[in-house]
């Protein structure tokens, strides 16, 4: 992914661009999103620029040196005060420089290994083992992207959907699951992460060990303790920590369906992933009432809908081909 960031900068730098594209580039560059990645790409640009040597100093540089020395002389006249604060200033600057030195270790290899894409279609689940031994169980309609080999400073994967990770221990190479403005960093631990593109909330549940969750365009972070669930609402930007029943939270891995005070709309979103049917309904058919249901593994959609219709008391349904129609009673 660093590819995208490097490539954008490379393209911008090497050619003339129209003013509107230039503005577009600037908006992107100073934007908060992916600031870490952009920073890395910028530093790469800096790193690749040649340093000068005395032998090949251009007259332009000589002229600049002349100008700078002149400015320095002008400043020194009557600026004793400046030198009094000198140590304070330089201490602060030193700190910044040290931090950036720590932040960008000198090995500049940003390896762009080939990514492997694993997609789980509707109504299926998949288990897979990543190259580092981490075990992943993926829920339906989920995409996971991971490199053929984890070579960088961290083990990064990209998740769109829901998956459970049993991370192989390697404290030198943290394991990072990234998603849209949300990421979870772990050393050796087990956690469940849910980040479907269409959902308004994202969540992560820690089963054992400890993880760091970053959200709000990666600007905020907190550490989860075992059995804590972190939920983040993309729209309201609200975050909550709860202690859900771990059995329920990971029930999907056993094929079970568990809904805890969930609205019919949210239930249908989950059913659409779990069963290969699309749901057809008018929004006003579904009331905002909350329901709690638990369905065993291999329950058919018909059985599920029978119960939901019965309990809700205000809808009926009809399954035709690959469509499930929900109608008012």
């Amino acid at each position: 992914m660093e590819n995208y960031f490097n490539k954008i900068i490379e393209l911008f730098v090497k050619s003339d661009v129209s003013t509107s594209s230039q503005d577009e580039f600037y908006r992107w560059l100073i934007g908060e999103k992916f600031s870490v990645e952009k920073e890395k790409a910028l530093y790469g640009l800096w790193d690749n620029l040649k340093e000068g040597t005395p032998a090949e100093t251009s007259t332009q540089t000589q002229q600049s040196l002349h100008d700078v020395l002149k400015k320095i002389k002008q400043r020194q006249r009557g600026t004793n005060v400046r030198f009094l604060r000198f140590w304070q200033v330089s201490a602060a600057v030193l700190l910044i420089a040290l931090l950036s030195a720590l932040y960008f270790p000198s090995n500049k290899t940003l390896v762009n290994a080939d990514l492997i894409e694993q997609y789980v279609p509707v109504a299926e689940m998949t288990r897979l083992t990543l190259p580092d031994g981490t075990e992943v169980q993926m829920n339906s309609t989920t995409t996971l992207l991971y490199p053929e080999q984890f070579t960088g400073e961290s083990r990064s994967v990209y998740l769109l959907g829901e998956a459970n990770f049993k991370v192989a221990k390697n404290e030198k190479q943290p394991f990072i699951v990234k998603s849209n403005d949300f990421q979870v960093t772990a050393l050796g631990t087990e956690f469940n992460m849910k980040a479907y593109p269409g959902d308004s909330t994202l969540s992560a549940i820690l089963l054992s060990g400890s993880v760091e969750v970053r959200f709000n365009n990666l600007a905020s972070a907190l550490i989860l303790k075992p059995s804590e669930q972190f939920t983040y609402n993309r729209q309201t930007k609200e975050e909550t920590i709860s202690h859900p029943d771990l059995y329920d939270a990971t029930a999907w891995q056993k094929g079970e369906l568990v809904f805890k005070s969930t609205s019919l709309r949210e239930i249908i979103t989950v059913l659409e992933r779990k069963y290969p049917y699309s749901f057809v309904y008018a929004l006003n058919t579904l009331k905002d009432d909350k329901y709690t249901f638990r369905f065993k593994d291999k329950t058919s959609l018909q059985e599920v809908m029978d119960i939901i219709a019965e309990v809700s008391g205000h809808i009926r349904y009809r399954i035709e081909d690959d469509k499930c129609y929900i109608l008012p009673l």
Partner: protein
Amino acid sequence: MNTESYRREFEEIFIQYFPKVRTFAAILLKSEQEAEDIAQDIFVKLWEQPDLWEGNLVRNYLYTMVKNHVFNRIKRKNIESKYINSRMNRHSLEEITEFKDPLNEIYVQELQLLLRLSLEQLPDKRRQIFEMSRFENLSNNEIAERLNLSVRTVEQHIYLVLKDLKKLFLIAIFFIKF
């Protein structure tokens, strides 16, 4: 430290790093003059900070400084208020490039920008044809007629653009309908 050796040491650092700092600012700001101003300001300040004049430290310090200066200049350019909803942004990436990638969701801004910048690299005629096809939704026949070219040539140009874009979006999967 005596003044003469102080100055000589400063000059060495200047010669080693000044071009790097100036070039970094120049290629991002696309202005030699602004870049020269920034670089000079940074080195005037550096004169007063001899405890930074050391290999790696000075490199990282200069990077931090030049980056901050560049960002400040960019922020002053008031780009936000100039925001125009360009026709590019009104089209989804998918309809323009026939490009499908699960990361679209995450990197949509990056991909848009990449597309935009790479279209600017194209020869004028080719870009014109591609934009007519994707933004004005003209058929290949209509484009051929307007530009007085053969349909075959139009197709070839569009094919070549898609091929270039494909190379660019390394991890992308393309569905080229030809």
